[in-house]
């Protein structure tokens, strides 16, 4: 069979057209865009990497991300995420309503950045002294971040448990020595409250137990000791000696509970006669002075 060049040309054209229609062949996106400009569809699609050498090609579609500024320098805007984003030379700096602003794009100022999805550059930066609502999430705009180095995993973060900073209810329950006076109050003294001996007052829940529930952020690490309101009455070990502070780490959990036992208090003077408190009434029958009588 002899090939007709004209037929062959049309056949190739048809095959290419069919392949494009079924997705079997992909042309460079620039070629498609040049033919028919395609609107930006989803912020979650994976775009080609943006490099600092890429030629900006504004698409006319924007993503608005709000955050706090670390700095603006060398034509880049740095957010507190640690990412640097390219600032378009023609970027407009205004207030959230679009009007002029007296604020400067400096550290701590809140900003809403409008990213051109085509170029990845910030084309508008609205400044405010208060946090601004954003439309896009960090994940939406992270792809526009410019970085010289390849991102590398951090074994510090991956290998072990991290802390989310969530609120965790922590309940401390302590069993006190049986000879603790019933009316006495027990406190938690912690390093994060300056070791005040009366920092956290506990509630008596029965004759020998006190309890308190507090909220801490997970990841909080602190030292604590039990006292009866002063450092002279701080807890002692079962061997009568001073005990080092207990340590506590708040983990990622809804609740945590801690059970401790105090064996002695620092002001226990169970057997020493008290020479200074002899009151001549029937209420002080011990030990040396007898009550007054006639």
């Amino acid at each position, binding site marked *: 069979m002899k090939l007709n060049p004209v037929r062959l040309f049309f056949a190739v054209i048809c095959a290419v057209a069919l392949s494009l229609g079924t997705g079997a062949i992909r042309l460079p996106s620039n070629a498609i865009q040049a033919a028919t400009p395609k609107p930006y569809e989803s912020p979650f699609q994976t775009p080609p*990497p943006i490099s*600092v*050498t890429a030629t900006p090609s504004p698409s006319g579609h924007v993503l608005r991300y709000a955050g706090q500024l*670390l*700095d603006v*320098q*060398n*034509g*880049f805007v*740095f957010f*507190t995420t640690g990412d*640097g984003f390219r600032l378009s030379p023609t970027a407009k700096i205004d207030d959230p309503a679009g009007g002029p602003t007296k604020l400067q794009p*400096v*550290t*701590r100022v809140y900003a809403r950045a409008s990213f051109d999805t085509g170029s990845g550059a910030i084309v508008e930066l609205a400044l405010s002294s208060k*946090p601004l609502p954003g439309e896009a999430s960090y994940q939406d705009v992270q792809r526009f971040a*410019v*970085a*010289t*180095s*390849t*991102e590398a*995993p*951090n074994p*510090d*973060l991956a290998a072990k448990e*991290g802390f989310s*900073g969530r609120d965790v209810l922590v309940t401390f329950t302590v*069993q006190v020595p*049986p*000879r603790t006076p*019933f009316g006495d109050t027990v406190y938690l003294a912690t*390093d*994060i*409250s300056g070791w*005040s001996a009366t*920092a*956290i*007052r506990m*509630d008596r*829940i*029965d*004759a*020998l137990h006190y309890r308190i529930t507090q909220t801490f*952020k*997970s990841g909080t690490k602190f030292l604590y000791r039990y006292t009866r309101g*002063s*450092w002279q009455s701080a807890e002692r070990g079962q061997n*009568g000696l001073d005990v080092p502070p207990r340590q506590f780490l708040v983990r990622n959990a809804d609740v945590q509970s801690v059970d401790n036992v105090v064996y002695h208090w620092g002001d226990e003077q*169970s*057997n020493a006669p008290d*020479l*200074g408190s002899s009151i001549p*009434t*029937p*209420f002080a*029958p011990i*030990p*040396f002075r007898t009550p*007054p009588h006639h």
Partner: protein
Amino acid sequence: MIPVRRKERLRSALVNSVLLLGALLCAPRIAAAAPAPGAPPVAATPAPAPAASTPPLEVPEQSIRQTPPPAATPLPFRAFSVAAKSMAWYSNRYILTGDGNVDIHMDGGVRVTGNTFFMDVRLNRFVIAGNVKLYALGREFQGAAFSDYLDFNRQYFVPSLGAPDRWTFTDADFNHPLFGRAMPGDTFFLPDVSHDSPLVLSTRVVVQPRESLLFSRPSIKLGLVYVPFPSYFLTFGPNPNLAQNSLPGATVDGPLDLYGGGHGLASLHLRYDPVDKVFFAGEVHQVSDKHYLVASISPIDKVFKQYNFEGFDRTTPGFQVQTSLQESAFQHDFSQPLSASAYANLIMTASLPRSYVQWQSHSYYDSLLNQPLPGVNGLLYYGDPSHNWVPDHPDDVTITWHGYQNRIGKSPFYFTLRSAEGFAHDGLDPLQEFGDVPYKTIYNTTLGLNLALPSYKLLKDYSGHGRDVFLNASFDKQRESFSLIGHHTDTTITTFSLSRQFQPHLVGLVNYTITNIGDFYGGRCLSGTSPTTGADILLPCQDVAYGLNTVYTNPITGAPVPQWSAFRGFGTTRSLVEQLVFTPTTYVAANLSFRQNHDFPIPLAAYTYENNIGIEPYQATLDLRFRVAPTINLDISRSYYFNFGGIDRWSPQFFITVLQ
């Protein structure tokens, strides 16, 4: 054969060297290509595409912490200084800030400058942001932000050498940055303190991580105004010994820590009490993990001064010594005092197998001054007769043995034994006169037993809500025998309590305590002589001690108290307490309790609450606690005494605890 670890180290060093070489080769070019501030960005070194296998950096919301796990062992932190145009300390959030020309000088000659500084001293990390310059190894790196996680010895840097990047330094090794390494999500988080009011303003702060802040020439907020001070030292370290207090009590105490360090602290206190009104006190600390020495003078500016010293030393792992010395002096300024008395206390504790032994001694010096020449009416005094000279010097010593708590078999009961030997001595004023014999020295021997049932589930809640009823009980018996013939005292304290958690936030408790105190005198003692025969009258010593047909009088009114007539040295206190503890949130707690006492001898009501004799028979107490701020607790407690001597009284007590 090279060990695996060494191989890894070699590989790491090789990779780091290649990376550093690349950085050093690229950096000058990047810097040269860097545009002027405000200029449009120019093309620089192309950024390589992220590796397919590299997981994306997940950055949570800014308010969420994502921090590395804590270091296994604490790191030795080096102090660093921070200077700025204005620095502020937000005590309620433990945040230190700096604005304008921030300049940080760190260990090893490392210097970081920038526009803004934030440090969370509890998280022990700081951020410096805005036009950051990092000076290290004789070089200068420009960037947008620098953060140091001191607990983990990780430094994070966002350089801006033409184009942004992420560098991580480990162990402050600025020679070997880890390029592009993922950072914790909130590495450069800047807390919002716009709604908080700083406690301290300054321009220079020396930070000793995990221990202290030293402010130079600060202004401290006192009420509504900022008052300048020469210095302010704030300690928040792990060593509680800096919180040891040697000052006597006061109604209000406002401490101002002026100077200090990891092992020392000098404080000025502004205090108030009803006697001295407003006055100043001073206190100094010298501490380590195993010892503390604390000395104070209070008041400094009043004539009646109290000098206190507290000392403690953990000499060995099984031995510690503790002492308290106090001198009370009446002196104008610091001149020769007109009166001076002292008290000394020494406690030594030694650990033994499953027990410990403790020495306790108390010495009282009623006057430390030399005997003055006789004055008016032959009285001995300095200045005027109100400063009388008393040479009395009583003291006592007790050596106590204390056993560990032992469980009785597999039962829920525990027992503890204790015993003591000691003596009390007063050479001038006899401790006791009995049968016309003065006793200047009395020896004592003590034996004690405690039997405890810490927590026993009496009634089980089968609904699964944990509303079980628990029983607690304690029985304590002590006998103290004295060298005085046949004299001993018995003390027995028996306690029962039932408790139940009705709801997760509501706990109920009923407690019944019986305390028996018996003062026994055995044998027969000389009571006097018969007026008719002149023979000695011998009576039971108990009757001699407490008298026969004794008519006790009310010490307040002078009226006889017939109910006390039966008192022969034996007293009993029975106390029933019902209590509800309601804790709806962690910020609010309400504690309602009723107490009823049935005692012998009966209590006597006085005109004022403080002068009541004995325990008021009926008492209702409501205690409310609010955490009004992270560092402020408001504690309001009020008791109502009723059905007592025809006088019902409120006992208002308000406590406000303000933490640093």
